[in-house]
């Protein structure tokens, strides 16, 4: 039944029937994380990695060890895409099904995996060796199609490389060996760059050019915390994740709150389809990032930080752990940083588990607390009461990197770059139909046309700025500027040439939002399903002119009543294409003829009754006599 809901006969879906995991083994995993309920995501990730399933009895054990109820554990386990209540294979192959991957030949790659492994997408092999799944954007749009094989990433898949990989796995090779025969001898950085290219096409002055090590932290250590905040404010730095809140103000609010403890959280949950800039910073500038977090800690008086890394970037885990360890060893993290009394700060890595919503700062905090990634009620705001109720600064990876550079080079230097209201440089991740997809560090203020020329995307007919939650523009808007005041973006610029079907793109983006809505509030949970179905009508050529008004009205309700930014922006693919590509819609609508609804299909309408009755209809089944 195509109703967005699974059809199950029982109360719970088929649970793991694999041999029950001994409670002592689960207890040992919980013990690793101090039996702390706030580390639930780590506990369940560890269980998933080891047993490839989170069974009811496992949830009972985890609940007992952490002092929760089983339903609370199940609430977390059933929320994240990478956790599974049903048994998965020892190797899970997740193929990225972003629209960019689809246009880069995903279907052929899928066919190869299905053929070689002998299972269909969504299935697990009978011997529990393999699972094949689709997953939304994994941040590799500049080298699509891409896939995750457990913790390893394969990019630029072709029919041939996919076949080689699938056959190697089938022959019993480990995912690591798909990357290199000598995987064990490679450094974490070598491993990461063997898997994934950086594709830095234009290095700017701030982030990707030469960066002296810890120069910003050296200066900040000698400054009064209030002066650090003042410098960030004067620089005009605004959040680089998309929302663009003034960073200095955020730090000031958190510092002003009376509190025993404060926290610095880094949002590395780069989930907006088409965005992959943080991936490159995490690979090439990890020290700069931690330096920025440490400066923020100094500025607001925080002793603890969390780096929230999206589950899709698990291949960067050991690289980042190594960086943290290295900095601890050098006295740049830990107690008495720079020999300053009371300058104590350390960072823990928190891995996500496949949930776009965790990029929303409240949801990110919930996830760090070991809860389902649901946004929090605002007010209170995170700077007042965030992680575990303490004042919390949540900033994007790029924002922290900028902050470190501002402390080194000065607010005036940064402020002079870009435009009024949009200062400094920005990393743009450009992908889709262009010759040079990759990362471009540019000052704010370039036009879309200029960027397209740099990337070799002059054939573009449509550009999606800011990912699905942003705006889709047509050629007549290519003169517009990439600034907070004109076209704002967290970094994503997706180029589509004239051969792409706009409605197909829109339908894909709506299915993405349906998949990624947390389900907390009614309009986002239900309304997006309705929007997706309505677009399906247009795609099938069954839409009437009134359906355009329906799309607008329903979008309006979702935007105005949703609880967080996901629902407030999820209708954007529809609204921005209705505005900028109206002919695409009018071309496929036709008025009702004879007041008969084209969408009414008697066969599908009676299908449910037919199944219940276990017989076919004399009147309506065309093939009854057969």
């Amino acid at each position, binding site marked *: *039944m195509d*109703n*967005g*809901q*699974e*059809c*199950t*006969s*029982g*109360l*719970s879906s088929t649970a793991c029937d694999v041999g029950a995991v001994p409670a002592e083994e689960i207890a040992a995993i919980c013990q690793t994380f101090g039996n702390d309920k706030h580390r639930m995501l780590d506990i369940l990730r560890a269980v998933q990695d080891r047993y490839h399933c989170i069974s*009811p009895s496992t949830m009972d054990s985890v609940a007992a060890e952490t002092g929760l*109820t*089983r*339903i*609370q554990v*199940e*609430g977390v386990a*059933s*929320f*994240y895409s990478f956790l599974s209540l049903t048994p998965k294979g020892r190797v899970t192959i997740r193929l990225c099904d972003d629209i960019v991957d689809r246009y880069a030949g995903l279907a052929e790659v899928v066919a190869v995996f299905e053929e070689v492994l002998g299972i269909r997408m969504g299935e697990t092999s009978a011997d529990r060796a393999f699972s094949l799944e689709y997953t939304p954007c994994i941040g590799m749009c500049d080298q699509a199609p891409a896939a995750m094989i457990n913790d390893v990433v394969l990019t630029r898949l072709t029919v041939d490389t996919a076949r080689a990989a699938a056959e190697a796995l089938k022959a019993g090779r480990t995912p690591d060996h798909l990357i290199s025969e000598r995987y064990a001898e490679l450094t974490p950085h070598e491993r990461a760059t063997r898997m994934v290219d950086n594709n830095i096409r234009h290095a700017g002055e701030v982030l990707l050019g030469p960066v002296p090590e810890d120069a910003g932290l050296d200066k900040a250590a000698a400054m009064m915390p209030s002066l650090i905040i003042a410098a960030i404010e004067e620089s005009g730095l605004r959040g680089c994740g998309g929302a663009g809140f003034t960073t200095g103000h955020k730090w000031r609010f958190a510092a002003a709150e009376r509190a025993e403890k404060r926290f610095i959280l880094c949002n590395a949950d780069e989930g907006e389809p088409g965005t992959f800039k943080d991936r490159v910073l995490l690979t090439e500038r990890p020290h700069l990032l931690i330096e920025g977090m440490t400066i923020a800690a100094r500025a607001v008086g925080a002793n603890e930080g969390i780096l929230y890394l999206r589950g899709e970037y698990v291949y960067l885990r050991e690289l980042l752990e190594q960086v943290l360890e290295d900095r601890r060893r050098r006295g740049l993290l830990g107690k008495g940083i720079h020999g300053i009394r009371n300058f104590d700060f350390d960072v823990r890595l928190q891995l996500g588990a496949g*949930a776009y919503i965790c990029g929303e700062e409240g949801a990110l905090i919930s996830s760090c607390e070991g809860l*389902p990634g649901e946004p929090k*009620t605002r*007010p209170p705001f995170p700077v007042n009461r965030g992680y575990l109720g303490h004042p919390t600064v949540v900033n994007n990876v790029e924002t922290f990197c900028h902050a470190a550079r501002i402390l080194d080079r000065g607010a005036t230097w940064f402020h002079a770059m870009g435009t009024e209201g949009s200062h400094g440089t920005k990393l743009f991740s450009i992908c889709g139909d262009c010759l040079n997809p990759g990362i471009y560090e540019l000052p704010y203020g370039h036009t879309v046309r200029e960027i397209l020329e740099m990337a070799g995307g002059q054939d573009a007919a449509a550009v999606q700025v800011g990912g699905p939650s942003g705006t889709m523009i047509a050629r007549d808007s290519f003169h517009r500027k990439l600034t907070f005041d004109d076209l704002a973006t967290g970094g994503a610029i997706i180029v589509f040439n004239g051969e792409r079907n706009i409605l197909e793109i829109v339908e894909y983006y709506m299915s993405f939002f*349906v*998949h*990624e*809505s*947390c*389900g*907390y*509030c*009614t*309009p986002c*949970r*239900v*309304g997006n*399903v*309705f929007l997706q*179905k309505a677009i399906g009508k247009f795609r099938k050529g069954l839409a009437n002119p009134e359906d355009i008004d*329906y799309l607008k*009205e*329903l979008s*309006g*309700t979702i935007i*105005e*009543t*949703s*609880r967080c930014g996901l629902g407030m922006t999820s209708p954007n693919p529809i609204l921005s294409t209705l505005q900028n590509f109206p002919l695409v819609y009018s071309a496929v609508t036709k008025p009702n003829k004879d007041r008969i609804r084209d969408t009414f299909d008697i066969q599908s309408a009676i299908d*449910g009754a037919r199944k219940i009755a276990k017989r076919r209809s004399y009147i309506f089944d065309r093939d009854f006599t057969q």
Partner: protein
Amino acid sequence: MSGTKKETGFTFTIDGVEITAYAGETIMEAADEAGVYIPRLCDHEGLRHQGSCRVCTVKAGGRSVAACTQPAAPGQAVENESPHLTKMRRDLVEMLFHEGNHLCPICEASGNCELQAMAYRLDMTETTRFPYLEPCRALDASHPDIALDTNRCISCGRCIRASEDVDGKGVFGYVGRGIHRRVAVNGENLADTDAQVTDHAISSEVCPVGCIIRKRVGFVTPIGEREFDKGLIGHEIEARRK
């Protein structure tokens, strides 16, 4: 107590009516005291505010906010029963109808059902343009005294909060994500939990629809003499207005 309360009081308006509020109060709490009804489904007296159904959406200072979680602010002009807001609330209530399987004529809760009553209050009379999702949902009759017909669940989570915060039990909880998010029980089925028919979470006032059913008391109050046969939902709050 009331003396100190008065000192911190301030006023704001809802649809032009002046309302007195106290520091820390939500828009809805202040409105309830003043006898101004703001439609709601997931919020219930005595339970912590959740802000998930969004039916209580109001315009405060031009912004859409959930009245059940938004603190009242001095001097603010709040818009409640405008045609625009009523239309959006009707959309939300329709979404809840279409998300589950709600067959009022055969439902034990008909007449006591807040979803049905809200549809009447919001004048949900025209044919709907939304598609029916017609999900397959389970009936759990395992418990000797209680049945759950999740076809009618609107995911308001009132039972979850009542069980956790009032009963101190945790019989219910949310599982899943997005359109698959639903209220589930702490075990294989309800009989597997420590739920009792005397729990506050199971009482007739907590479940706004006909999902949580107490066995053997169905139709004790005949149709025609039920709560919303006496007046529109919210009439009791509106009766407080001077």
